[in-house]
C-alpha cells in the first residue's frame, strides 16, 4: 500500500527525538548511578538497533524507494523494543505499560486500521504472555528501578490492569485507524480537488497555449505585414526612383524638343521673312507689269475705235467682225490688267481709291450687258435682264462696280455651256440693292462655295486654260463690294445645276 511520505518523515523525526531523549535519560541514570551498567548496555544496543532501522527508513524515504515491509518492520521492532524494555523494567508493574499505545497509534496513523489492530492485539498478547510466563515462573521477573516487587503476584490487580490495557490498546488502534481513514479521505478529496484543479489548470494551460498560439500567429502576421510593408515600400521607392529617372529623361527630351522647335521656329521666321520679301517683290512686280501693260493697250484700243467707227475709211463686214473680236479681247485684257493692279494694291496694303458719286445700278448692268450681248448671242446663250424700274441711285464708284458686274457676267458666260441662260436681276431688298447673276452653268460644289473668293483659287485648274482666267475675278469683286460696304456670296445647288452670285449694296442717303 501507499505510505504517506509526510507521515513517515514525521514518524522518523519523532523517533529520532525519542531515541535521543532515551539516550539522554539512560546517560542521566548512569551518571546518577541509579541502575546497573549491564542492563544499560543492552538498552544502548537496542537503541542502536532502532537507530539503524530508522536510518534505513530515512534513507529509503529520501530515495523515495521504500520497501513495502519496512514501515511494518520498523514499527514491529519498536513494539518489540518497548515490550522488552518493559519486561526488563518491572514488567507488568511498570507504569509505562501504556507505552505501546504510542506505537499502536503511530501504526494506525501511519499505515491502516488493520495493522493497528494487529499491533494492539500483539501488544496485548505480549503483555499477557509476559504476565503468565512470569507468574508461572517460566521467565524471571525484573523489578523496576530496583524498587521491590509490588503487585505482579496479585492476579486480581493484574486482571484489572490487563483489561484496562486491552481497551486502551484497542481504543488507540481504532482511534488511529479512524483518524487515518478520515485523513485519507481528506487527502483523497484534496487529491481530487487537486486533480480537478489540475484539469482546470490543464484547461488553463490549453487556453494559455491557445492564447500563445494566437499571439504567435498575430506576431507572425505582424511580421509578415512588416515584411510586406517593407517590400512594398522598397517597390514604391524603386518605382519612384524609376519615375524620377523618367521625368528627368522626359524633361531632357522636352528640352531637346523645345530647342529643336525654337530652332525650327527661328528658321521658319527667317523663311517667312524671306517669303514676305519675295511676296512683296512679286506684288510690286505685278503692279509694275500692269502699268507697263497699260501703255501699249492704250493705242490698240484707240485705233480699234478709229477703224471700227469708220473714221479711217470704210471696212467690209468681215473685217469689222474680226476687229470686233480684237476689241473684245482687248477689253478682256484690259480688265485682267485692272484686276492685277487691284490685287497688287491689296497685297501692298494700299487703299484702293474710290471715286464715290451718285450712280445707277441699272445703267451699270445695262452697259455691261451691252458689251457682252453679241458674245452671248454667238454662243447661243440667252442673256436676260430683270431690273426693278424704280431702282434708287446710290453713292458708288461706277468704274469699280461695273468691273464687279463685268466679272460676274463674264464668269457666267465662261461657265455656261451653249444654249444656256444668264439672268441678271436687281431689286431693292430692305436697305440694300440686291444684284443677282444667275446662270445655268456647271455649278459649284458646296465645299468650294466659300473658297472661290480666295485669291487665285480655281475650282478645277483645267477650267483656267479652257476659259482663260487667272482666278482673281471673284477676289476683286469681294474687295470692291466691301469697299462699298456691301457683301457678296455664291449659291449653288451643286455640280451642273447652275450658280447664283449675289451682292448687296447699301442704299445710303446722300449727306447734305
Amino acid at each position: 500500500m501507499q505510505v504517506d511520505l509526510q507521515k513517515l518523515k514525521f514518524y522518523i523525526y519523532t523517533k529520532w527525538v525519542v531515541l535521543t531523549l532515551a539516550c539522554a535519560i539512560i546517560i542521566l541514570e548512569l551518571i546518577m548511578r541509579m541502575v546497573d551498567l549491564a542492563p544499560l548496555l543492552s538498552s544502548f544496543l537496542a537503541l542502536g538497533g532502532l537507530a539503524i532501522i530508522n536510518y534505513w527508513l530515512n534513507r529509503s524515504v529520501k530515495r523515495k524507494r521504500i520497501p513495502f515491509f519496512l514501515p511494518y518492520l520498523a514499527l514491529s521492532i519498536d513494539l518489540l523494543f518497548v515490550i522488552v524494555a518493559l519486561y526488563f523494567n518491572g514488567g507488568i508493574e511498570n507504569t509505562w505499560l501504556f507505552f505501546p499505545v504510542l506505537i499502536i497509534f503511530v501504526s494506525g496513523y501511519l499505515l491502516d486500521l488493520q495493522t493497528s489492530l494487529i499491533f494492539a492485539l500483539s501488544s496485548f498478547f505480549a503483555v499477557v504472555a509476559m504476565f503468565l510466563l512470569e507468574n508461572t515462573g517460566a521467565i524471571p521477573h525484573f523489578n523496576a528501578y530496583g524498587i521491590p516487587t509490588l503487585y505482579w503476584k496479585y492476579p486480581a490487580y493484574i486482571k484489572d490492569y490487563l483489561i484496562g490495557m486491552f481497551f486502551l490498546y484497542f481504543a488507540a488502534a481504532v482511534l488511529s485507524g479512524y483518524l487515518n481513514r478520515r485523513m485519507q479521505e481528506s487527502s483523497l478529496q484534496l487529491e481530487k480537488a487537486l486533480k480537478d484543479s489540475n484539469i482546470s489548470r490543464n484547461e488553463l494551460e490549453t487556453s494559455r497555449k491557445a492564447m500563445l498560439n494566437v499571439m504567435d500567429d498575430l506576431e507572425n502576421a505582424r511580421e509578415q505585414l512588416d515584411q510586406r510593408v517593407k517590400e512594398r515600400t522598397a517597390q514604391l521607392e524603386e518605382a519612384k526612383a524609376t519615375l524620377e529617372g523618367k521625368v528627368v529623361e522626359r524633361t531632357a527630351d522636352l528640352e531637346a524638343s523645345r530647342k529643336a522647335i525654337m530652332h525650327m521656329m527661328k528658321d521658319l521666321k527667317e523663311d517667312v521673312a524671306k517669303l514676305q520679301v519675295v511676296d512683296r517683290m512679286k506684288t510690286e512686280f505685278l503692279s509694275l507689269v500692269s502699268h507697263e501693260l497699260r501703255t501699249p493697250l492704250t493705242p490698240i484700243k484707240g485705233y480699234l475705235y478709229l477703224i471700227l467707227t469708220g473714221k479711217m475709211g470704210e471696212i467690209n463686214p468681215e473685217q469689222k467682225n474680226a476687229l470686233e473680236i480684237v476689241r473684245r479681247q482687248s477689253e478682256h485684257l484690259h480688265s485682267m490688267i485692272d484686276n492685277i493692279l487691284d490685287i497688287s494694291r491689296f497685297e501692298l496694303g494700299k487703299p484702293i481709291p474710290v471715286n464715290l458719286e451718285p450712280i445707277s445700278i441699272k445703267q451699270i448692268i445695262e452697259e455691261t450687258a451691252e458689251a457682252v450681248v453679241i458674245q452671248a448671242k454667238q454662243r447661243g446663250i440667252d442673256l436676260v435682264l430683270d431690273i426693278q424700274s424704280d431702282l434708287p441711285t446710290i453713292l458708288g464708284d461706277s468704274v469699280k462696280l461695273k468691273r464687279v458686274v463685268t466679272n460676274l457676267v463674264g464668269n457666267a458666260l465662261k461657265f455656261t455651256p451653249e444654249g444656256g441662260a444668264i439672268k441678271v436681276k436687281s431689286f431693292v431688298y430692305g436697305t440694300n440693292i440686291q444684284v443677282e447673276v444667275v446662270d445655268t452653268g456647271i455649278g459649284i460644289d458646296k465645299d468650294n462655295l466659300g473658297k472661290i473668293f480666295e485669291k487665285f483659287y480655281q475650282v478645277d485648274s483645267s477650267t483656267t486654260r479652257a476659259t482663260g482666267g487667272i482666278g482673281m475675278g471673284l477676289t476683286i469683286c469681294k474687295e470692291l463690294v466691301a469697299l462699298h460696304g456691301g457683301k457678296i456670296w455664291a449659291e449653288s445647288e451643286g455640280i451642273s445645276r447652275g450658280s447664283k452670285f449675289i451682292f448687296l449694296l447699301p442704299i445710303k442717303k446722300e449727306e447734305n
Partner: protein
Amino acid sequence: MAKRVLIIEDHRETAEMISSILQSEGLETLTAENGQIGVEKTFAEKPDLILLDIMMPIMSGFEVYQKVKSNPETKDIPIIIVSVKVSDRSIKENPDIGAEAYLPKPFDPVELVKTVKKHLGI
C-alpha cells in the same frame, strides 16, 4: 477756228492715236514728246487744252503742270491728265495737282472725246 489741243506724251503711238481721234472730231492737235518741250509749246502756242502724261523723261507731268499753272498767261488752260498712274495716290493726294480731269490709260476713246469736248466747252 478749230480748237487746239496739246498732247504731251512720250509714247509716240499713243500720242498719234490721240491726235487721230481728236482730228477726226475736227480738232487741231499739237504734240510734245517730253515735258520740257510740252512746257515750251504751251507757252509758245497757248493751246485751248492740254492732255498731259505723268511719267515722261526729262520733265515729269507734275513739273509741267506746276509750270503751266504758275504762268499767268497759261494758268487758265484746262489740263486733263492721261496716265497709267492716274489712279495712284501720289496724284490724287497731291494738293498741288488740281487737274480738271483724269483719264486712266487705257482709256475708252469715246470717253476721251466726251471729256475733251466738255472741257473745251463744245
